[in-house]
């Protein structure tokens, strides 16, 4: 009896203790460590390897899509190519067809990906800039390098956004409460921010490339975008200076004479002196995404994207680029030409890198900037640098107007199907409303000057009350 009684009491006490413990242990029990796949942010920005990984994520984000057209991985090239007079699609995808027909709706999810992916990338760059600016744990030079790289990425994001959409919210922090209600920032202010980032990056970054090849931005990379930005802003003097800064460093940058070698890897092919900034493909088994989409699997297959007659006829007869940078498949007696700057669709050896900035553009920028300042002879020299490589005779334009239109034309055939140059140039040089009506009507559509800006996705307008749609879209 006693024994039983005692054991009952023991059971009771033990139970009582467990319940008390349950109360007491609560606090500890529900505190959990971060998941094994997470690194706390404060840790990321106090260690140079981790901080470097955060920066590398920017490039991986830009380049990794491989089999999908993401904005920084062929998307801008293809979609603006369809909108303008460069490409048409044989894929039969509704969103693309409506981009081609200049009949984009504000519910077009393909166009909306340009917006959303850009802002995702901007967030990552903002987070790095914020995280590193406050970090005392890292060495100053390493920190400056990474901040500089993030600023270049941010500037590139906004450069594209402002040209695709016009005035866009200029978001430079990670404070989502604040950022969620930012209205459109005027185009001038966005450009001011871009220039400020690039000027800062130019001084933060070293003149040398951080790693093998030209796949991490250096200070010249900042200059390369800066010269383009000044050109778009019609700041001819600065555009000229920035382009000169790069062109004058002839030890590093030189035009590659063989058109077939312009887009090669700057690691495997250290002679690729034309590259200012390239991204190395990261998806195992894949080359560049543009190569994957442009190059058909065999000579009997229609290319997904075909070069339009407008672009084909723009080339001069003897232009070497017609054969080096274009190729055609003949099907049913009809030739379908496709861009062939990248020559590998899917190879897996990463022998081609994705070109973001290259020297030829800097020559054309300087040519235009010089011509605009009336320095026609110097301008012609730069222009002919490019014509020469293409096997063409020097340009003999004698008036500023002729020279400028020669430069515009040279940009069309040199920079075709690269990063939206054609679409942006049409708008920048105010040719869009003279050229596009004919182009659009050939696509069974009709041109409206409003179509030069893409619509902001409907959900974005709904979710940010302060955002307004571009004119012409309902």
């Amino acid at each position: 009896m006693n024994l039983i009684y005692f054991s009952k009491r023991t059971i009771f006490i033990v139970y009582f203790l467990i319940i008390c413990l349950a109360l007491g242990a609560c606090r500890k029990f529900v505190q959990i460590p971060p998941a094994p796949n997470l690194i706390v942010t404060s840790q990321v920005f106090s260690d140079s390897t981790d901080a470097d990984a955060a920066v590398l994520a920017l490039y991986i984000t830009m380049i990794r899509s491989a089999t999908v057209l993401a904005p920084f991985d062929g998307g801008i090239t293809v979609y603006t190519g369809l909108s303008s007079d460069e490409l048409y699609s044989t894929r039969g995808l509704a969103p693309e067809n409506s981009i081609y027909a200049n009949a984009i709706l504000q519910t077009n999810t393909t166009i909306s990906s340009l917006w959303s992916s850009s802002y995702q990338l901007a967030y990552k760059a903002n987070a790095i800039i914020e995280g590193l600016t406050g970090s005392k744990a890292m060495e100053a030079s390493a920190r400056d390098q990474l901040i500089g790289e993030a600023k270049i990425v941010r500037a590139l994001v906004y450069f594209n956004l402002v040209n695709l959409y016009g005035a866009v919210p200029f978001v430079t922090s990670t404070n989502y409460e604040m950022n969620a209600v930012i209205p459109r920032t005027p185009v001038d202010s966005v450009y001011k921010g871009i220039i400020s980032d690039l000027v800062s990056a130019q001084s933060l970054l070293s003149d040398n490339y951080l790693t093998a090849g030209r796949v991490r931005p250096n200070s010249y990379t900042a200059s390369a975008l800066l010269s383009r930005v000044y050109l778009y802003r019609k700041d001819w003097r600065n555009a000229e200076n920035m382009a000169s800064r790069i062109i004058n460093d002839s030890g590093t940058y030189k035009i590659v004479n063989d058109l077939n070698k312009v887009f090669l890897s700057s690691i495997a092919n250290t002679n690729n002196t034309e590259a200012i900034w390239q991204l190395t493909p990261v998806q195992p088994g894949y080359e560049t995404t543009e190569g994957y989409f442009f190059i058909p699997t065999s000579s009997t297959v229609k290319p997904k994207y075909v070069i339009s007659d407008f672009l084909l006829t723009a080339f001069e007869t003897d232009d070497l680029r017609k054969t080096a940078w274009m190729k055609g498949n003949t099907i049913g007696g009809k030739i379908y030409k496709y861009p062939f700057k990248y020559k590998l669709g899917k190879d897996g050896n990463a022998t081609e890198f994705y070109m973001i900035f290259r020297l030829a553009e800097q020559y054309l920028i300087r040519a235009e900037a010089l011509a605009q300042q009336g320095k026609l002879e110097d301008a012609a020299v730069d222009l002919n640098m490019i014509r020469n490589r293409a096997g063409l005779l020097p340009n003999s334009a004698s008036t500023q107007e002729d020279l400028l239109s020669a430069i515009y034309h040279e940009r069309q055939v040199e920079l075709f199907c690269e990063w939206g140059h054609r679409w942006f140039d049409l708008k920048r040089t105010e040719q869009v409303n003279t050229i596009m009506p004919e182009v659009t009507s050939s696509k069974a559509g009709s041109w409206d000057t409003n179509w030069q800006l893409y619509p902001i996705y409907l959900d974005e307008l709904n979710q940010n009350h302060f955002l307004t749609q571009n004119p012409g879209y309902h």
Partner: protein
Amino acid sequence: MKLTTFLLVAVYLHVSAIGLGQKVNISGKDMPLEKVFNMIKKQTGYVFFYDYSIFQGAKNVTVDIKDGGVDESIKVCLKDQSLDYNIVNKTIYVTKKGEQWAAPVNGEDPPTKIDVKGKVVNEKGEPVPGATVKIKGAKMASASTNEAGEFEIKEVESNASIVVSSVGYELWEVKLKGKVALSVLLHTKVSSLDETQVIAYGTTTQRFNVGSVTTVKAEDIAKQPVTNPLQALEGRVPGLVVTQSSGVPGATVQMQIRGQNSLNPSTGGIMPLDNPLVIIDGVPFSPQNSNINQLSSITAPGTSNVYNNIYGGMSPFNSINPSDIESIDVLRDADATAIYGSRGANGVILITTKKGKSGKISINGNVYTGQSRVAHTMPLMNTTQYLAMRHEAFNNDGITPNDIPGDPGYAPDLLNFDTTKNTDWKKYFIGGTAHVTDANASISGGTSNTQFLFGAGYHHESYIYPGGFADNRITMNSNFHHNSSNKRLIIDFSVNYSYDHNNSSNNINLLSAFTLPPDYPDLLKSNGDINWIYKGLDLGDYNLGLSTNPAAYLKQPYFIKTYDLISRFQIGYEITKGLTLRSNLGYNTLTGNEYNANPKLAQDPLSYPYTIANFGTNDFKTWIIEPQMEYKRSLGKGRLDILFGGTFQQNTNNKTIISGENYSNDLLINSITGAGVTYAVGNYNLYKYNAFFGRINYILDNKYIVDLTGRRDGSSRFGPGKQFGNFGSVGGGWLFSEESFIRNSLPIISYGKLRASYGTTGNDNIGDYQYLSAYTPIPGVAYQGSPGYNPQGLYNPNFSWALTKKLEAGLELGLFKDRILAGVSWYRNRSGNQLVTYTLPLQVGFGSVLRNAPYTVQNMGWEISVSSTNIKTGKFTWNTAFNITIPKNILLSFPGLAQSPYQASYVVGKSLSVLQKVRYFNVNDTTGVFQFLTAKGIPTYFPSYSPAATGAGDAVIIGNRDPKFYGGIKNTFKYGGVQLDVFLQFSKQMGPNYLGQVYLVGYPAGANINLPASFVSHWQKETDQSNIQKFSTQFADAYKAGIYFSQSSAAYGDASFIRVKTVSLAYNFTTNYLRKMNLEGLSLYVNAQNLFTITGYKGNDPENQSFYSLPPLRTFVAGIQLNF
């Protein structure tokens, strides 16, 4: 003794049995009888019941008994007396000869005050504690019985009537007529009110439950040939909406209790459901109702709007065998759910599996087999109609069809295909028959102390698609129960295991493949290979809407294997009277192994044939330990039940996907080893939860019930300092039918209860680690050999508990001896400061952040259920059960809505599912293009989607998608051994129709996608009046108008329906026949599910409201059930 008025005396002493023998030793002369009785009592412990009047005229006794038996001793003592006796158990009843004990005594006695004692026992002789003893006509009960079933009332008028009542027993009534000792035998009542109902940490009955709980029983589940037990709940529980997302086996079943509380994380999609907490045998089901797939398949088509099924996926409940379930209890109000604290805001579903029963070994077998088909789909155009549409469309566009790819006039379906060919692709893809076979067997039995059950089940269900797809499931269940002879120690152990293998196609385009042009060439060559080239045309490349020859979809495999183990161990010990210590230990692990692949043979050899295979593992684990202490005792005239306990719970979810690419040969594609390139992604979540809870339940006089619950919770999902929250509820009930004034004035009311509850519940049903600012490595890729880190998302360290306040009142009535049972509940739930995945514009970098949103949502409604026995004659019975719910959801307040990301989605004062759409006007009879109305009512081709209320748009409120009312009605007819059950489900609601979905696809109606045949009547020429605009192939005016149309009021319509959900006809063989066959039971049955639907809905099916995904199937089965 001198007073004859003391007619009765209860000699009723409780004597310890210890040290007593059964033998009687009495020796003496002329002893008064009463003294002899006392001696026997002392020696044996036997109790005497007698009327004092027996001693009048009783002779004194002279005996000499040595080691006599009780019976024989009494017989000796009563020899020569005019008395009778009777021994029942250990009670000896002594009466005058020829009189029944406690029988009325003749003659009126003057009213005198007497003290009455008594003992209340049931048919088994067990004492009934807590029974109410009342003097008839009195307002209050006079006493209630103690643990031994005894009671005493003092100062009762001797001619009063005594009424004894207790839970689950028939009322007992006697006129005292001076008797002072009562022996009361209560008969168990046969009423559904007194059937066991499972509630949190215990059981109760409907009669004494203050909470809002509905039970669906095994017999109702058994009549439905469903794979997923949730499907069996459709229409059966008030307040619960269950929707099958697709007719594809294994597809998710959405469920929601009493409406939506939280905001939609994605304004573009359909409302996500606030899922209730699901607990199986005391163990929280590890995956809850989240999809267990990581890879997409035709069951899980992902976020495509077209399938109207963006939350579709693989249901974890597919791994639970409906036959193993004893009951499903749906807990709705605060009283029932508050004890679940942070997890009960959206209601709780308790699933209880079958247990063994004592008695002889019983073997149960049940087998059925049958077929399923798609019930209703929209007919599509035939080739003639299709070609006419195409030509007309090109004609409208002013384009001559040509065969130049990429050209606006490219039309191989007109120029290259055999235009005399007419294939019904709908029939080809979804016109098939699925076969279903289900077999279950179990064995159970045991003694009164130990019971067991072992069972096994097999379920096979093929797909209606071609391709040999099927879902196969094997389940095993077991339960072992033991209690010690003194019932103090209770052990319960159960293990349920299931294995499910579901294989189908991973290509979601298979769902819409039926819209292929009817003149499309044969998909397969005569040798069975996929036909890639037709007249020089590459069928893998020619595409609109479909990315390849759809035959390839059937050869792109997907499978998921799920392994589900639910085990639970409970041990309880009653240490002293009424005080029980208990522990629940539970463990649930559910693992899904998935695979999908794109082999070379399914790819166009002219494209880049590139093999890919993905191997996914999704592993959910939950363990739970819940020590509890329960104390039950009588207190005053009532019963007190106190429960205290704690919970320790841990959930982990481990996900990995290993991808292999570039296989050299299709033969190797089932292994990761053969891949040329591999990479892996991993994801891990940990959730810990700890709580202390208590419940006090007091039932006074079987009339008044008070329930108090409280819980203090800690959850790892919250940031430091915000991890704890307190929740509680108070509930009360009044069984007014127990009041004598009701009994007397309204005798038709056999049961009546008013109940009310108020309380708070919380919600921590959010992702893990959301408060943490962190980075995560990008899997599978490196930049120059170094990894990259991505921010894991926006983080918010400040979010914390949010409360749902639940108020409920209910009236329950039983009429005509409970032949009609009715219940009405009114509820009002208010959720404020709710934790939500708050939508943000993508310009901030991510689309959402977890935070407390400043709004209040109210779900209010009425739930009515009635069940009745309409006819009950000798052989024939007819029972009806009906339930209806009238819910109303409104956004009560949302400060700052106009500036918030939700400004276009919600309206204060309207439902969360409010539809703000542009009003459709007509087809302009000149241009043939859809027109809409601006906010001001002016026709336009280009309305603005924004709500008119914002000042900028044309969208107005056209309604909402909440059901206005829904419910079900069940009729059961029995005639002899034949039983017919008919269950109808109904819902009045609004939903998207097929017209909007056709235009939503993104191609102009007139492109080379086949359309419903109803499109044949459309606008063709000026002055035509039609509701379908002109056909067009181009991305021009008609295309844009079509997209507007898909977002307009015309894309929505009535989706109300009445569905004959279940019809079950069974024949149960008669006892005579069974005896001959040596069987306990045998029945043959045919069941039909989704037999037919009455609806005005425009589209395939008003339940899943999707034109492109598979509607719920119609199933017929026949089966046999055996029991021996």
